[in-house]
């Protein structure tokens, strides 16, 4: 779909010229002489581009631009403003109001078209729905020999290509940047920069590096192919080769390229904009005319103040600044420009009529990049401008390359770090999994195999006691009973150790657990055991917690079991289970009036195998509280004990209600 271009200018000449040019570029055009006409057109049609004159018979261009930006049919359009150069203020206003480009009158038609296309392409990149400029493949031919250029042009046109031509490397690069040809044919030998350099520069430009290039070489050049490829050309041919061969190569390159997409980045090699500042209108016009004929886009300012205002609104590639101006002088303007962060890198050349080395020193010390006398040959001026712009371009290219390299390096490092991290994590997870499996296998084996011999020891000791009752004296029977007791104790140890390892490994399933009910049930189990113990259990009703019910039962079995055990020597044993609020947290406790313990050993209680009583006094394995500790830990809680010898003990614990604590 061709782009729709609205041209609004009251000058019939301008309208006809631009309409003709845009039509030739394949666009659909709507010429309008007044804002009213344009408004009407915009009501009925969506436009992609608006070329807008600042001075309109029935409106102010900048005001109209504001209007245009508010209309749905043109809000996203590319807007180029046209104006005579006298109105610096308009340019600044236009750029600030949302114009995409501002072109001074008299304009260069080709530049208006190519700049429009460039801006449209940028729009396309940002928004895929905008129509593109029609795509008949365009071939750029860069050659200083008119004969060969024309021969190649007619051959290409005959083959259906659109052809652009340039006579020098610089011109070629400029055209390449603005027109983005599908392919470029460049002569190896050119008057300014050679073909290889042209290709190298193209390859450095992110926007153009994908463009296929063919390098033309003379028949006498040795190692031509090597040179061509070294420069980054996609192919080369000799001038005496058949044109048909060249066309075939071109077609092949374009086929390959059709697959790829064109990146859209602002080209470094685009048309250069020069800001010329001088209080003499005559000189300014002369300078602008000459620079425009060299292919530059010129913005004019008539004073230092205007120049400062302009550079704030409009990016330029080079500044030519008169040293002697009324109001803000050249050196002060220069100093201020060089103080603006985004503008300070723009090459600035000071112009002066004076033949005075002091003025030159002043200018350079104010920050100017170069200095030239107005009386100098114009050739010298343009050469300096070119040199400065090229220097800046090299800097930009270098900076871009450095930035690219740096960001690539950072990316590589980041990717490597991420990969290493992932690898380490995977290795750790693997290792953990393996250890867990080992542990599972180990405890499975312990559970099966370690108990079997104990059964034999206990079973056959019992068999001896039973079958040989008459023949064993009391000591022998006593020994056998000790053997059995030891075997059974070993069995208990194994069971407790397995439980400890299991509560550490088992998955946590949190549910609402009625702790009071669990405590009652455990108490009933204990009371139902063999023996004549009478223990009074006091259980606070209605205590609920969000926790793993199996593990909570294990906690209460251990704590109530301990309390039951350690109250065995008191007259009226009382074991209490309850909860209290402490600093907003619920603290559960199991309290007994049993033998208690010395507080100086309080921290030893929760480590495995730590016992504060002899086996004869109170039997036990010393693993129960370690199990409790591990379970509470996995629930994100805390457990501690308090008591005194002969005055009972209290074990308290908290359970974190959030699901934190144990993530595994």
């Amino acid at each position, binding site marked *: 779909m061709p782009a729709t271009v609205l041209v609004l200018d009251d000058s019939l000449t301008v309208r006809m010229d631009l309409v003709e040019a845009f039509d030739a570029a394949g666009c659909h055009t709507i010429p309008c002489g007044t804002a009213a006409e344009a408004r009407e057109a915009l009501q009925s049609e969506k436009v992609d581009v608006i070329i807008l004159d600042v001075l309109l018979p029935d409106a102010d261009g900048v005001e109209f631009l504001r209007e245009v930006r508010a209309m749905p049919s043109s809000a996203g359009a590319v807007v180029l403003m046209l104006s005579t150069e006298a109105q610096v203020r308009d340019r600044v206003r236009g750029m600030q109001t949302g114009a995409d480009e501002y072109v001074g009158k008299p304009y260069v038609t080709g530049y208006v078209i190519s700049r429009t296309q460039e801006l449209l392409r940028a729009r396309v990149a940002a928004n895929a729905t905008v129509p593109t400029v029609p795509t008949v493949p365009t071939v750029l031919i860069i050659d200083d020999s008119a004969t060969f250029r024309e021969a190649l042009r007619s051959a290409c046109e005959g083959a259906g290509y659109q052809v652009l031509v340039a006579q020098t490397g610089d011109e070629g690069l400029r055209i390449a940047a603005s027109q983005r040809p599908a392919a470029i044919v460049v002569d190896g030998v050119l008057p300014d920069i050679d073909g290889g350099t042209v290709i190298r520069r193209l390859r450095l430009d992110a926007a153009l590096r994908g463009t296929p290039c063919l390098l033309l070489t003379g028949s006498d050049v040795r190692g031509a192919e090597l040179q061509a490829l070294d420069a980054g050309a996609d192919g080369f041919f000799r001038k005496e080769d058949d044109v048909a061969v060249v066309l075939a190569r071109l077609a092949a390159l374009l086929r390959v390229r059709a697959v790829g997409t064109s990146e859209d980045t602002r080209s470094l090699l685009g048309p250069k904009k020069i800001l010329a500042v001088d209080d003499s209108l005559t000189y300014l016009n002369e300078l602008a005319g000459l620079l425009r004929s060299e292919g530059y886009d010129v913005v004019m300012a008539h004073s230092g103040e205007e120049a400062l205002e302009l550079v704030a609104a409009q990016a330029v590639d080079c500044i030519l600044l008169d040293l002697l101006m009324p109001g803000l002088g050249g050196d002060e303007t220069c100093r201020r420009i060089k103080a603006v962060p985004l503008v300070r890198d723009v090459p600035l050349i000071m112009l002066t009529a004076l033949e005075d080395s002091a003025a030159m020193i002043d200018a350079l010390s104010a920050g100017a990049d170069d200095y030239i006398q107005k009386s100098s040959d114009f050739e010298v001026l343009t050469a300096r401008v070119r040199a400065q712009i090229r220097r800046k371009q090299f800097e930009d290219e270098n900076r871009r390359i450095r930035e690219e390299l740096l960001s690539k390096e950072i990316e590589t490092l980041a990717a490597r770090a991420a990969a290493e991290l992932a690898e380490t994590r995977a290795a750790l997870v693997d290792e953990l999994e393996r250890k867990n499996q080992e542990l599972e296998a180990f*405890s*499975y084996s312990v*559970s*099966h*195999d370690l*108990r*079997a011999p*104990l*059964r*034999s020891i*206990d*079973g*056959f*000791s*019992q*068999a001896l006691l039973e079958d040989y009752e008459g023949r064993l004296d009391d000591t022998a029977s006593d020994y056998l009973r000790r053997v*059995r007791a030891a*075997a*059974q104790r*070993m*069995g208990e140890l194994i069971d407790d150790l397995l439980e400890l390892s299991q509560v550490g490994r088992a998955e946590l399933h949190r549910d609402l657990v009625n702790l009071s009910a669990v405590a009652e049930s455990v108490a009933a189990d204990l009371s139902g055991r063999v023996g004549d113990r009478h223990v009074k259990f006091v259980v606070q009703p209605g205590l609920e917690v969000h926790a793993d019910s199996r593990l909570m039962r294990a906690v209460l079995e251990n704590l109530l079991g301990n309390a039951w055990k350690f109250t065995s020597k008191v007259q009226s044993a009382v074991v209490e289970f309850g909860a209290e609020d402490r600093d907003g947290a619920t603290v559960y406790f199991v309290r007994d009036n049993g033998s208690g313990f010395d507080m100086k050993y309080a921290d030893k209680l929760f480590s495995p195998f730590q016992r504060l009583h002899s086996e004869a006094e109170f039997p036990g394995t010393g693993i129960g509280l370690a199990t409790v500790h591990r379970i509470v830990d996995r629930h994100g809680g805390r457990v501690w004990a308090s008591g005194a010898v002969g005055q009972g003990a209290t074990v308290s614990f908290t359970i974190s209600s959030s699901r934190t604590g144990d993530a595994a």
Partner: protein
Amino acid sequence: MSGQLILLVEDRPDDVELTLRAFGKSNVTNEIVIAWDGEEALDYLFATGSHSGRDPSLMPALVLLDLKLPKVDGLDVLRRIRDDERTRRLPVVVLTSSNEEIDVITSYDLGANSFVRKPVDFVQFIEAARQLGLYWLVLNEPPKIP
């Protein structure tokens, strides 16, 4: 009931001895046939291999099955028993050392009728044997066609 026999699948001679003693002590007088590994247990039940001469229509009243066994392990034996028409209703009690959760669950999933852990304390073991004999050989009513 004394005509019914018990198949004890157990590889440890000590455990065989103790189990026989426990049943004896608890007055279970049924004949007890011993299979020393899983393969032999299956051979006995299906009258194959070393037991190929046996009349396969005579099935034990109860199988006491250890889990850790050489050759074919206990859970595989159980699976094969439940997969076969001839033995699918046979009462099988898993009698083993561990009470690892995974063993208990898998045994029941495969169709074990009971899961009993052999206690270290032999007095408790005798009590377990007595109750097993009483329940499975006296109280329990097996199907007419096994």
